[in-house]
């Protein structure tokens, strides 16, 4: 099935047009090379998002394939009122949550999981960190600590933090990609950041009790 080319995405005018718009238009007309360019442009990001959410490499590989295939099949549904990347991220997040659900053998997994019941908008651990946590660990130890720490966040926090702080989407784009309101994204982001900070404090806090307790 080739994507339909009947819908206009956006006509080049006086406003600056994102280069993806032309690639999407060509891909809709069946230009596979244009779609391949989009794949090469965003596959690393989709893989990273999928790994962050599923915490499983094989699942992340499957998500990359399924997300791009789904995007290709649904290209005619892309309205062009958001960036192509934001639209793709939404597909990738849904595919990732589906994989996570399968792995948990049917246990409900959604971006709302565990986020409504926890307050956590105020920090509990008041410890300051050492002057340079990066000198306390080598790069691979540090990466392992960061991976382990984010793994412990509920998916609803993990996904917001990943899109906003790892991928650098704006609050509005994150809200659009997740189907959440801007205040909901802000609230989850705060709690995600504070939880991560608190968990990282176990590794980075000042030694000899010279932090604020």
């Amino acid at each position, binding site marked *: *099935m*080739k994507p339909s080319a009947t819908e206009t995405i956006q006509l080049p005018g006086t406003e600056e047009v994102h280069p993806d718009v032309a690639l999407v238009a060509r891909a809709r007309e069946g230009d*596979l090379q244009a*779609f*391949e360019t989009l*794949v*090469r442009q965003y*596959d*690393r990001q989709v*893989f*990273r998002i999928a*790994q*962050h959410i599923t915490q499983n490499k094989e699942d*992340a*590989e499957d998500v*990359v*394939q399924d997300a*791009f*295939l789904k995007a*290709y*099949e649904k290209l005619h549904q892309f309205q062009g009122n958001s960036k192509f990347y934001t639209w793709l991220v939404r597909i990738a997040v849904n595919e990732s949550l589906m994989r996570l659900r399968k792995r948990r053998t049917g246990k409900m997994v959604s971006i709302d999981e565990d986020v409504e019941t926890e307050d956590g*908008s*105020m*920090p509990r651990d*008041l*410890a*300051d*960190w050492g002057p340079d*946590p990066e000198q306390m660990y080598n790069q691979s130890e*540090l*990466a392992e600590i*960061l*991976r382990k720490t*984010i793994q412990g966040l509920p998916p609803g926090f993990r996904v917001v*933090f990943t899109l906003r*702080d*790892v991928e*650098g989407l704006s*609050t509005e784009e994150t809200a659009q990609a997740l189907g959440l309101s801007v205040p909901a994204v*802000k609230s989850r*982001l*705060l709690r995600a*950041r*504070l939880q*991560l*900070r608190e968990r*990282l*404090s176990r590794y*980075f806090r000042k030694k000899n009790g010279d*932090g*604020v307790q």
Partner: protein
Amino acid sequence: MTCSEFMALLDDLFEDEVGGDLRADLDEHLRGCEHCFITMNTTRQTIEFYANRELYPLPDTLRERLEVAIMEKCRRC
């Protein structure tokens, strides 16, 4: 300003989206609250740790394999 009010504005502060009287209130709170000062700094460091590191790189060989598989599936659509 209370600590809760300060925390609620932390993202806006990081994004430099507060100005005027509100910014002055935030600064005043920070001067008098070591707890919020530490939390702000360590939270900023937390964000930087994750933003500046590639925790899940996609190896070239895997990337190539995935791209071939994706395009093959698209061709069959």
